[in-house]
């Protein structure tokens, strides 16, 4: 007699039949609760689609990486089912539920009646529908079967690409790397695990992942999985890049597996809808785990699933009060050596405050989000030892007002008073190391101060090298100066870049280079920013510094730019914009003028004005008209004049030898050449040039940032002039003989300015601060340095000379120029 008939009768007596579809962790926990607390209450049968017992899916990553064996992660072995009288039908897929007959049907035709039914079908991995997704080497990461397939693939070596930089993707990547594969993680968003981590912690995570020789590509949109002879050979991104691959793992998210419930006519939204007692809209059918949707939330972590299992078990044992009320969840990444924790809601919000602690030297980042003196969100990276304490405070909704001053330091300091920082340094023994980079201990520094008479930070740094490399111990060295000299020491009055940091512009620039910081989150973390996302003062400055330091590598952060540079036009007092097309060297043509006139007519532009920089300004253009205005100007061959940018503005010229009876050189031609060479480069502040054809100086070159006066013997080069709030004549740089030299000296000078000046510092102010002579030394006398500066400028121009107007006519940043919505009176009436 087959097993089928044993369960298939009617009118049988004995315990009610409870049938469970799915043998994952939620179902396993529910059944365990039931059979240990009320043995024999139900006749239980479990259908498992996998040919296995119940095992700990959370521990699949250690199995993949080789830190554990499959046997070690089994929760209920075969004997357990026998002992507790539970029938487990492995490898049996239920394909239909007949609710009227209260009967299930399997793929193989097997049928079974139920009195009570539990749906615990879990979730399915989301496979991105790109060409090639169906290839045999494209895997998901969900169960032990997937792990076995990955291990087989990894045994052959080669390259793996993991699509998705979330929890699962990173664990898969670490596992495959541990198994010896070359691994690349592709992530659609700018930072890893953006759902669980803020950008600062995401940055630290990315660095830690890369430190394991796993390549991370963010903002990577998969276009296609490329096949060769029917097998995976590469992954191609939208931008055309190809990453070689022998194996592709899709870890782009999960979806509740609710189709069976849906086909049975149960209420299903994203997941199977359940009430607080885990019942579906059929009172005899329950659902728990990743397949359900409770109060609008689908869960993918184990803690809430276990809670659901307990609640349902109590309900099935007759406790009508048992209820699942949703719960706060926390996340930990299970990659050995990477410690991160996040919980709750770390969005900023009305009435919310944050406390941020960064310890750059130890790669520690802690952020607590508070509301009404309660912790509502936690992000910990690098040191998660206190996560349980914080999470308990969050779950309990404890009032932390009393602890607030030292809260961020964790339970060890709870309620204590914050230490006087100088006292902490005073307590250190003489042999305590202060500067890790240069191996300088406290005693050496104190001796340099008290015996060597070095009484400033610079002097101590020069003498001992302490704080001379990475700079993170600068604060400690200053404390030692304070401690040793008492009131006799005054900290260097460095103006901090803004309220978000203690550091001045120069220090920030130096550290961006020294520590190779290449993103805003990197700068903010490594330099200990006091806010999580900066402010309107520091963000544009940092964006410029990064752009100028890492051409071609750093991706411009558009939201950190002032509106004019964001929309490539100048905002006016009434919120309209002005548009200034480039007129190379001040030259124009009848066609260009006609096009400008047509644009002015077509878009009802109220004011057309000639600027001081020899070009034409169209004022009063509506923001939404900008792309169309640019399209017409582009069509006539005109491009953006960058009249809005901290960048090259104009090169003013006179007519020179072409027309003028006094002209000594082709000043117009040289002006055009300079403008074509320099346009598009971002600079600390605006840069204006002029070229005059003779010393009569009709182009007024001697009050410009860089000026050229043509003379019979060549070209007299000028710099550091101004004619704005301050009027200042230029300094003479030198005289050169050829146009090529003009370009080289000019490019080198502007590059030096780009590398040394503080954001929003004009050339004349920078030159006055560092010394006009030192500029001459570096650009004129030091030939090698000039050539290197020039080469760096030429290199960076490769990435900056594309017309921003044409890009936006093509559709870039289209959202910028359209209202989100237009509401009419009828809409609200």
């Amino acid at each position, binding site marked *: 007699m087959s097993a089928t008939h044993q369960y298939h009768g009617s009118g049988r007596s004995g315990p009610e039949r409870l049938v469970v579809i799915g043998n994952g962790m939620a179902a396993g926990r529910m059944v365990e609760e039931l059979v240990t607390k009320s043995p024999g209450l139900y006749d239980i049968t479990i259908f498992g689609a996998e040919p296995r017992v119940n095992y700990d899916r959370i521990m699949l990553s250690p199995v993949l990486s080789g830190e554990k064996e499959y046997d070690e992660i089994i929760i209920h072995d075969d004997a357990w089912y026998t002992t507790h009288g539970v029938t487990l039908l492995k490898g049996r897929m239920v394909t239909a539920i007949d609710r009227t007959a209260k009967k299930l049907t399997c793929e193989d035709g097997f049928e079974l009646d139920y009195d009570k039914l539990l749906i615990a079908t879990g979730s399915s991995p989301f496979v991105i529908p790109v060409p090639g997704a169906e290839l045999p080497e494209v895997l998901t990461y969900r169960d032990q079967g997937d792990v076995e397939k990955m291990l087989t693939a990894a045994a052959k070596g080669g390259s793996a690409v993991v699509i998705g930089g979330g929890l699962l993707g990173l664990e898969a990547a670490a596992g495959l790397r541990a198994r010896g594969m070359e691994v690349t993680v592709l992530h659609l968003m700018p930072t890893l695990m953006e759902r669980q981590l803020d950008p600062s912690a995401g940055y630290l995570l990315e660095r830690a992942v890369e430190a394991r020789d796993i390549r991370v590509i963010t903002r990577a949109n998969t276009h296609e999985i490329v096949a060769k002879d029917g097998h995976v050979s590469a992954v191609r991104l939208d931008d055309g890049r190809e990453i070689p691959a022998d194996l592709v793992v899709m870890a782009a998210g999960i979806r509740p597996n609710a189709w069976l419930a849906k086909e049975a006519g149960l209420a299903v939204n994203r997941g199977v809808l359940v009430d607080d007692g885990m019942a579906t809209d059929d009172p005899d059918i329950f659902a728990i785990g990743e397949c359900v949707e409770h109060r609008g939330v689908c869960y993918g972590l184990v803690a809430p699933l276990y809670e659901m299992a307990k609640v349902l078990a109590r309900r099935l044992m007759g406790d009508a009060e048992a209820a699942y009320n949703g719960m706060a969840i926390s996340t930990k990444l299970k990659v050995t050596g990477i410690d991160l924790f996040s919980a709750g809601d770390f969005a900023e919000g009305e*009435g919310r405050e944050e406390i941020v602690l960064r310890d750059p030297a130890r790669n520690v980042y802690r952020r607590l989000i508070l509301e009404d003196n309660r912790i509502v969100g936690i992000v910990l990276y690098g040191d998660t030892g206190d996560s349980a304490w914080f999470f308990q405070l969050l779950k309990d909704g404890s009032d932390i007002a009393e602890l607030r001053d030292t809260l961020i330091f964790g339970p060890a300091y709870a309620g204590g008073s914050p230490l006087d920082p100088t006292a902490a340094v005073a307590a250190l023994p003489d042999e305590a190391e202060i500067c890790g980079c240069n191996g300088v201990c406290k005693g050496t520094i104190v001796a340099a101060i008290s015996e060597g008479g070095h009484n400033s930070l610079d002097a101590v740094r020069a003498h001992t090298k302490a704080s001379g490399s990475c700079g993170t111990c600068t604060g400690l060295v200053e404390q030692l100066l304070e401690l040793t000299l008492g009131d006799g020491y005054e900290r260097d009055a460095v103006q901090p870049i803004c309220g978000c940091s203690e550091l001045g512009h120069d220090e920030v620039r130096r550290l961006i280079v020294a520590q190779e910081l290449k993103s805003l989150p990197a700068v903010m973390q490594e330099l200990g920013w006091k806010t999580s996302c900066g402010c309107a003062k520091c*963000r544009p400055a940092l964006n410029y510094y990064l752009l100028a330091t890492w051409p071609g590598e750093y991706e411009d952060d558009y939201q950190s730019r002032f509106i004019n540079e964001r929309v490539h036009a100048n905002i006016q007092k009434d*919120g309209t914009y002005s548009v200034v097309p480039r007129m190379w060297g001040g030259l124009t043509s009848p066609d260009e003028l006609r096009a400008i006139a047509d644009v002015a007519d077509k878009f009802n532009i109220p004011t057309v004005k000639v600027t001081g920089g020899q070009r034409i300004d169209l004022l009063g253009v509506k923001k939404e008209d900008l792309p169309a205005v640019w399209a017409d100007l582009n069509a006539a061959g005109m491009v953006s004049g960058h009249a809005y940018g901290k960048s090259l503005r104009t090169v003013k010229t006179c007519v020179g030898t072409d027309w003028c009876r006094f002209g000594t050189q082709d000043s117009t031609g040289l002006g055009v050449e300079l403008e074509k060479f320099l346009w598009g480069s971002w600079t600390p502040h605006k840069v204006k040039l002029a070229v005059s054809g003779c010393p009569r100086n009709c182009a007024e070159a001697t009050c410009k940032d860089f000026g050229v006066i043509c003379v019979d013997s060549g070209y007299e080069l000028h710099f550091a002039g101004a004619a704005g709030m301050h009027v200042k004549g230029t300094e003479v740089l030198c005289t050169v003989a050829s146009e090529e030299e003009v370009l080289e000296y000019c490019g080198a000078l502007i590059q030096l300015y780009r590398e040394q000046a503080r954001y929003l510092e004009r050339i004349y102010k920078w030159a006055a601060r560092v010394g006009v002579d030192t500029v001459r030394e570096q650009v004129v006398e030091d030939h090698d340095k000039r050539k290197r500066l020039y080469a760096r400028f030429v290199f960076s121009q490769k990435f900056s000379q594309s017309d921003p107007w044409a890009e936006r006519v093509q559709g870039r940043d289209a959202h910028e120029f359209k209202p989100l*919505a237009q509401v009419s009176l009828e809409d609200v009436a």
Partner: protein
Amino acid sequence: MDMMVSRWIDVGALEDIPRRGARVVKTPAGCIAVFRTEADEVFALDDRCPHKGGPLSQGIVHGRSVTCPLHNWVIDLATGQAKAPDEGRVATVPLRSEGGRLLLDLARMASRAA
């Protein structure tokens, strides 16, 4: 009596607004700026700085503040209050986020138009 009945109008999706950015909703009673912070919070304010009427939607968004593009006043997005030393306040517009859709309560506009 100034009784206003809520008029919730769907103006778009959260994803339509860039993080640390803003978009404008045009209404016959003036523009409303809808902001999205780094942490995906959304706020709606009149698009007029209390100082000289600058379009706040065009400013740099940082934390829960926006800096006006005309003269750098810093406005708190949640309260509409200008930050010290500046003084002034811009009207906030009730906003609700539902399943990724953004809804503004434009009752004020209806009453203004009536």
